[in-house]
């Protein structure tokens, strides 16, 4: 088992993230001294395999969106490497942004805010076709019709402005824009959390269909475990900028190794469930400006021992079956 988990390169990986770190701040002040630095993402390694949906869960501020922005090249890692199909992404982003945008696209959390309020939907959807593809005007027109068809929107919507749309419709437009240039990988950053449950189901079903139709690979970021479980093949749980647990979705949700994953699952409300797990109110997130030396979850963890506080567990400190790894010295179910 261990062997597999250490050699994930064996399988066909579309995107490879190795030891990626992103530090914000930390520059020099005008008069000596350093500005405080925050490690938004730290020591992150993972692969995204062709054709899969990788779910990323974690609470606000755990670095999910930073990771997403790194993958689409909106931001560059402070250290470490991200490669897409063997090509270094940071180098590509510097050399030719548009080449990267042809392969990797992004769907935003707030569907309405991601559309320029002063542009018609046609202008918004035409932009990627104009700048990223070499289609002529006629072919672009045909492609627009195709895109709208793919996301289930009526063609007359093209001439309207974003504020005339509901959240679900706006998110379809955001998805159509991401699809426009025919990318291989789409990063979905909380694509449904601003939507109503009924609309959320519509969009999730749509994403599912598009994935099959266009052979896409997804990175699906969400704070909602039940949504992630229903869409993902594999899941990465993040805590405080690091990977807490990574593995096949089924494994993670049936037999979580990391106490944090377990806490998340037991806190999630579900219809018909009365007893929510609730921690002590004193449980606080660690201070990003003064990160703990050991496991970041230690302050909230019931299984904590001295080694937890002394040093950080490696991302694959604990292993389960099927490439299931967790950064914990005392994984659950393995007394």
């Amino acid at each position, binding site marked *: 088992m261990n062997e597999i988990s250490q050699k994930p390169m064996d399988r066909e990986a579309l995107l490879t993230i190795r030891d990626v770190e992103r530090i914000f701040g930390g520059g020099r002040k005008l008069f000596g001294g350093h500005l405080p630095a925050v490690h938004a993402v730290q020591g992150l390694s993972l692969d995204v395999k062709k054709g899969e949906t990788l779910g990323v869960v974690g609470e606000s501020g755990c670095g999910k969106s930073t990771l997403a922005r790194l993958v689409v090249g909106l931001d560059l890692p402070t250290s470490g490497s991200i490669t897409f199909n063997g090509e270094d992404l940071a180098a590509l982003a510097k050399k030719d942004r548009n080449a990267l945008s042809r392969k990797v696209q992004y769907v935003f959390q707030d569907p309405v805010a991601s559309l320029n309020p*002063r542009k018609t939907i046609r202008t*918004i959807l035409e932009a990627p076709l104009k700048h990223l593809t070499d289609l002529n005007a006629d072919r672009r027109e045909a492609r627009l019709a195709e895109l709208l068809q793919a996301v289930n929107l009526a063609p*007359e919507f093209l001439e309207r402005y974003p504020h005339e749309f509901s959240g679900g419709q706006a998110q379809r437009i955001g998805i159509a824009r991401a699809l426009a240039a025919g990318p291989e990988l789409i990063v979905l950053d909380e694509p449904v959390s601003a939507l*109503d449950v009924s609309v959320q189901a519509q969009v999730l*079903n749509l994403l599912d269909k598009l994935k099959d139709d266009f052979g896409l690979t997804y990175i699906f970021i969400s704070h909602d475990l039940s949504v992630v*479980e*229903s869409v993902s093949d594999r899941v990465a749980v993040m805590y405080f900028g690091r990977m807490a647990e990574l593995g096949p979705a089924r494994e993670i949700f049936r037999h979580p190794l990391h106490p944090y994953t377990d806490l998340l699952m037991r806190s999630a409300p579900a*219809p018909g469930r009365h007893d929510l797990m609730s921690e002590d*109110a004193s*449980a606080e997130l660690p201070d990003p400006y003064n990160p703990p030396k050991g496991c970041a979850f230690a302050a909230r963890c019931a299984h904590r021992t001295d080694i937890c506080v002394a040093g950080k567990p490696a991302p694959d400190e604990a292993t389960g079956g099927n490439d299931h790894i967790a950064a914990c010295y005392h994984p659950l179910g393995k007394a």
Partner: protein
Amino acid sequence: MTDTTMSAPSRPASKSSRPGTLALLLNNTLATSGLVVLVLICLIALAAPILPLEDPDVTAPANRLLPVFAEGHLLGTDHLGRDILSRLIWGTRVSLAVGLSATIIAAFFGSLLGLVAGYAGGRTDTLIMRGIDMVMAFPYILLALAIVAVLGPGLLNALYAIALVNIPFFARNIRGITLGLSRREFVDAARLSGKSPVQILFLEILPNVLPVIVITMSTTVGWMILETAGLSFLGLGAQPPQADLGSMLGEGRKILFTAPHVSIIPGLMIFALVMSINLFGDGVRDILDPRLRAGSLTRPVSRTAVHRKADDIPSPSEKGGVLDVRQMRTEFEIGSSVYKAVGGVDLNLKEGECLGIVGESGSGKSVTAMSIMGLVPTPPGRIAGGAAYLDGEDLFAASDRRIRDLRGGSVAYVFQDPLSTLHPLFTVGDQLTEAITTHRPLSGSKAREKAIELLSLVRIPNAKERLSAYPHELSGGMRQRVCIAMALANDAKVLIADEPTTALDVTVQSQILTLMNGLRRERNAAILFITHDFGVVSALCDRVAVMYAGRIVETGTTEEVLANPRHPYTAKLIECVPVLGEPERRLDAIEGRPPVVNNLPEGCAFAARCPHAQAACRAGEIELEMSSDTRGVRCLFPLNSGAAV
């Protein structure tokens, strides 16, 4: 946002009923009178060449200092015998032209600098902004004087000087806006669409900044005219014999006591011009401000207006309870359409009971909650019927004073966004003690003790130290706990919580839910809990009411409704929630959208999306049929009705 011209094929009719830009402007009397005066002055100034005026520069020493209404000189003559009326009109022309050109120059360069600085950020921004700061470090008029001193006096040079000293003003304003816009998601989206930085700046950001540039121009052009006049007054602007309002004033100053009209007339003109421009400019600003657009330009009052027929007030129900809402209807009147946000809602809450209201966005949950204590903004909102009884007292008939006492006293609210409830500049302790002392006369130290007690009640560690914390120093979950503590400050009988956990992480959400559950058991408070999440309802609520298009479509105990939903909408709504541990479950989406509440269909509002709809569903009122004390459904063909299967 301004009303952009749109040519969408089937635009919703409701759009056009919104007041247009011009209509709004005309609604504002001050701005309109400013506009009228301004247009008048401009027309006269423009018509100067064709008006039968004397040459403004021809001197006639024989006619020196004729008074107002002199023969042939309506406004008299100045110390060189020139016709003042003619000089006034020609001078206004010059002043207007100079003021406008200076504004345009300043706006162009200032906005450009601001746009570039705000978008580029980093070093470019620092460089540009430090340069701007340097310009701003000099007193304004002194800088203009220095520039004119270098360039030499003259109208054109004065124009440059005025434009230059105003550039920082534009640059700073525009930079701020650009900075905010550059962080917006649509800019990232444009980058990912392959647009270059220049294209993004001028095609994506500029259109959004343009209204601000226009606003800034309209509010500064008046000052620029004044400043040009100032320079001319000092003899640095227009050179004799050219007339301009400032130089006329300057020339008249020497003979202020012998012939006051020579200086008073241009002075009045400057006043009228600047005043009208500023009034109009303020009007323009108010209209372009999107927040002021929706609710016309009237101030909302502190309590929702109540318009109900005196003979149509329902009496309290037999069930009693602390809070008893009967047939409550709340409407919004926007333009010519009426949105029936709440269309006859009945709610009943007993002590220690928690009732959940669930529904999609826009179903009227929040408006229901806010109507109870008159928190819906008027205009455009109003309570159009029904009653809300708090311990038998009709809240819609109570005096404003009584309502103020009850708000935060017997009835307390907790909203979704704790940051909007807490004032950012006061400590948590200050705000808590204020909440306590507005409702009862406690001494400072007593109130402080009580505040500490409340904070510990909501399980905030180190309550004493936290009193001196500012809201931004607390995490989202702690802030929400502080809001709950404030709501509990006066032993509220009814706690109305509008999605209090929606913005929070799951682990924090479960803490808050546990906390609220404990509080209602300990304090016997009734909770009205609004949410869109059936999971949250399960965790906390005894009973649940499902809302659709402003009405309750199903109600019952939480177990019953979840296990055995009878309204097709409830059933569908439950089906589309993904459930942890059941990844294979197909999410069954509800196709279509809820109806807009200004144009509700006859019969069942859900008919267009309902798989069981029949002809009968689309005609006539459908009542909420109560099958037991707590259970009811508003549907002609309810599901699982046993007999019907």
